[in-house]
């Protein structure tokens, strides 16, 4: 197991925490938490095998969050001295006092055991230990290989993040964590006559290190070898005829549908209206907990902050709550929400399930998504067996465009590749496809989920939520799955052409 970097541990973490928590107590805080974090992010972008731009940035700072007279107060700072930290703690108290006239619901938090510990995510090679030149050379080689096979252009990118957090609160919890994530992606582009199109690798972002690019967890050379021919086939493919089709959806596409139509819809802050003016609310309202038929009886969805290589996996969340795994949909019925400590107590749900997260030292934690995953069927079918059960349908791979309404009813997705299914067999690619549905109609139409061998952890680095806006990384695991009678649009016709 990797260790936390010594230069982070060398920062005066406990001394600063003591200064902040003591000052907050002196000024009357009922609860106080200190969080110091360093988020380092490096991004490389190549176009046609040449480095187009790179950024190597970090965000180092701390935050003090207090409850004073039942009102939250939050302040962030960057000067790492006990005096500066104490001053920011006083600012957090002032923010609580200035905001008090606006607060009508006294803040109380669900109980959580006191924790003390260290957690490091599962990775082998720190991407920040790999020279820039080596990374550029690898992406350049991959790009050159695609260009040599006849595509017009190739864009390549590699995002790498290392997140280090120290947390201490007035209850006595003290935790230190480090996690790493990477996302390599290549997109091949080609023009045929007056039509251009592109195709991106399906490799998902993961909570792994640089080893992900060198053979652990994904076979990039094999995927890249197929991409030019697949793109050429897509450019020559017929345009889809709009109508209702049976779909078999690959995990590389289905993860995003899960994210939008289950992940966000089962965030309790949305269900309670805290996101009403921005990200929106949820059709899955609290009064339907235990009652709502979310999907077919074979639908089982979990929230998980412990999944190995999961982008939302942590040891403890940003309220000091231990990472857990919990049920959200069981046998098709809504049975759980994603929680933070305030909402868990407010709604009488007992302990928080650890879904508070802040994306930077300058932002307060808000309720963010766990790794929300659709469970496979033990002994369930392969993708080929799912396809074999379709007479007239479409097989969907890879995510592309996505959009869903503010209560998570109506969604529309496109993908990287769509194949026509005729009499249980794939019959070539289709173009201009989008699928559109209402969340519960879609999940209730799921008549088969694949077995564990079809299960893949997909995800994204950049799920947006909250004001001020915060981004969070999150994974979604799922098997291949089959849906009956889904509405398919022809996007060219939608554009009025």
């Amino acid at each position, binding site marked *: 197991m990797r260790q936390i970097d010594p230069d982070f541990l060398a920062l005066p973490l406990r001394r600063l925490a003591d200064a902040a928590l003591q000052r907050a107590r002196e000024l009357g805080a009922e609860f106080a938490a200190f969080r110091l974090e360093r988020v380092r992010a490096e991004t490389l972008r190549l176009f046609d095998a*040449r480095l*187009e*731009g*790179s*950024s*190597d*940035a*970090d965000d*180092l*700072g701390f935050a003090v969050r207090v409850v004073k007279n039942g009102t*939250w*107060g*939050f302040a*962030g*700072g*960057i000067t790492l001295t006990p005096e500066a930290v104490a001053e920011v703690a006083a600012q957090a108290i002032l*923010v*609580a006092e*200035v*905001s008090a*006239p*606006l607060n*009508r619901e006294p803040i109380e938090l669900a109980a959580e055991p006191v924790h003390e510990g260290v957690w490091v995510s599962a990775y082998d090679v720190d991407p920040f230990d790999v020279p*820039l*030149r080596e990374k*550029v050379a690898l992406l350049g080689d991959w790009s050159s290989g695609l260009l040599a096979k006849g595509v017009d*252009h190739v864009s390549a990118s590699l995002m790498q993040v290392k997140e280090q957090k120290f947390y201490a609160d007035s209850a006595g919890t003290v935790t230190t964590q480090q996690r790493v994530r990477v996302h390599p992606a290549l997109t091949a*582009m080609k023009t045929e006559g*007056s*039509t*251009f199109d592109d195709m991106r690798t399906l490799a998902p972002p993961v909570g792994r290190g640089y080893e992900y690019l060198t053979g652990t967890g994904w076979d990039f050379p094999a995927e890249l070898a197929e991409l030019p021919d697949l793109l050429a086939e897509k450019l020559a493919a017929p345009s889809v005829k709009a109508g209702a089709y049976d779909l078999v959806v690959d995990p590389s596409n289905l993860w995003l549908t899960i994210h939008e139509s289950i992940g966000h819809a089962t965030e309790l802050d949305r269900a309670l*209206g805290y*996101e*009403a*003016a*921005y990200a*929106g*609310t949820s*059709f899955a309202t609290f009064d339907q907990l235990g009652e709502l038929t979310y999907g077919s009886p074979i639908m089982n969805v979990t929230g998980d902050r412990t999944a190995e290589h999961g982008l939302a996996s942590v040891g403890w969340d940003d309220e000091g709550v231990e990472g857990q795994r919990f049920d959200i949909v069981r046998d098709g019925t809504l049975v759980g929400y994603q929680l933070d400590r305030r909402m868990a107590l407010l709604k009488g749900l007992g302990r928080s399930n650890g879904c508070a997260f802040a994306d930077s*030292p*300058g*932002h307060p934690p808000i309720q963010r998504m766990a790794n929300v995953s659709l469970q496979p069927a033990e002994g369930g079918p392969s993708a080929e067996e799912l396809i074999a059960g379709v007479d007239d349908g479409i097989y969907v791979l890879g995510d592309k*465009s*996505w*959009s869903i*309404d*503010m*209560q998570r009813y*109506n969604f*529309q997705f*496109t993908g990287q590749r769509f194949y026509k299914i005729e009499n249980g067999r794939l019959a070539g690619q289709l173009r201009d496809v989008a699928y*559109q549905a*209402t969340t519960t109609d879609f999940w209730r139409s799921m008549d088969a989920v694949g077995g564990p061998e079809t299960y893949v952890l997909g995800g994204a680095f950049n799920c947006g939520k*909250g*004001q*001020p*806006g915060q981004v969070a990384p999150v994974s979604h695991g799922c098997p291949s799955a089959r849906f009956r009678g889904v509405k398919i649009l022809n996007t*060219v016709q*939608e*554009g009025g052409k």
Partner: protein
Amino acid sequence: MTPQEVVERALALPGADDRVVIVDEDTTANLRFAGNTLTTNGVARGSRLTVVSIVGAGTGVVSRSGVTPEQIADVVGAADQAARDAQPSEDARPLVAGEVAADWDRPAEETSIAVFRDLAPALGEAFAAAESGGGRLYGFAEHLVNSVFVGTSTGLRRRHDQPTGRLELNAKSPDMTRSAWVGAATRDFTDVDIAALDATLAQRLEWAKRKIDLPPGRYETLLPPGAVADLMIYLYWSAGARDAFDGRTVFAKPGGGTRVGEELAKLPIDLYSDPARAGVECGGFTVAHTSSREQSVFDNGFDLGRTKWIADGRLENLIQTRHSAEVTGLAETPAIDNLIMEGPSGGRSLEEMIAATERGLLLTCLWYIREVDPQTLLLTGLTRDGVYLVENGEVTGEVNNFRFNESPVDLLGRITEVGAASQTLPREWNDYFTRTIMPPLRVPDFNMSTVSQAN
């Protein structure tokens, strides 16, 4: 150490042929509320040093936050090393030359929670009023101040202070079936009238008392300035010259080149940016922390002026770096942080356009806008917080929400009326872009693809 001293110290260190140093000083304050009560709040401060080093043909960029005086040399050294490791930069150009700006020595500007001292009580009164009427208020107020200092080894020293404020108010009926939204962009919150915004919300919730179900289809639609802003911002973000030249966007000419010079709208519409435009003032020079398709670190300090993207309905310019301008043979027109759309003078107000509508839809805003097809710039998204039916010049009720599929470029060619432009806050993109002046538009056949049950 002042930001100016940081710039000078970083520039003075040996190890690179040329260097650009950028210091950003940021302060923020925010209040967030839901259901007539505060939910989150905060103040924060940030400081970031970005060093662009040029060694031979290579360029290295390193950015670090909270840098102490003793750490400046480490950041510069890391950028120098990255430059030595780098391949030749395709966008390399001589750094922009210049001199020390007259305002260079002024300290960075700041904000604090005190910016809300007048707003917070007014919001408190609005919460109380909503509570007594059984309604609920949701929303967000934020103030950011960014002071950026740019210095180059060619002698240029420029700085800019950018205040950015936004307020969003969302009112809902007690049963949550009626919802209305208003937003305001501001520099300092002194011009925000909570009572007036609250009155607009009340009027819209009143309109929504009569519910009318309409099927999907193409409808004559009045897009208010905020919805127009969201569509035009996406068009603007898609107007990179290099991508168009490479055949990757709606602005690519089939067979090669770009569509610059081509008529996009039959009406004489101007879409432009102007750093000096009153109310939406923004930085008058390029600040690029990294190079990309649409910006170049070599262009830091480049003078920005009024730039027309669309003039009299014709595509006039695309977003350029100096490098992409050379490749495409077009003018050097880098991105600018505001966007203005205007039609012929004498355009009607939105209220006058409603009065002149026999039957059509009036939107409040668009939401979750995403690209479906880059070739046509087909976008999808939802209507939100109020779609109203206009009949014989009056709003007669609220209609269900829709998912739309529309291209803002195609739409420019179909609009039949451009109203009077005013400053507005985009709904979808105001996390990234707040400085817009837009007109209301009349579209004869806006494509409402399907009904959304959301309300």
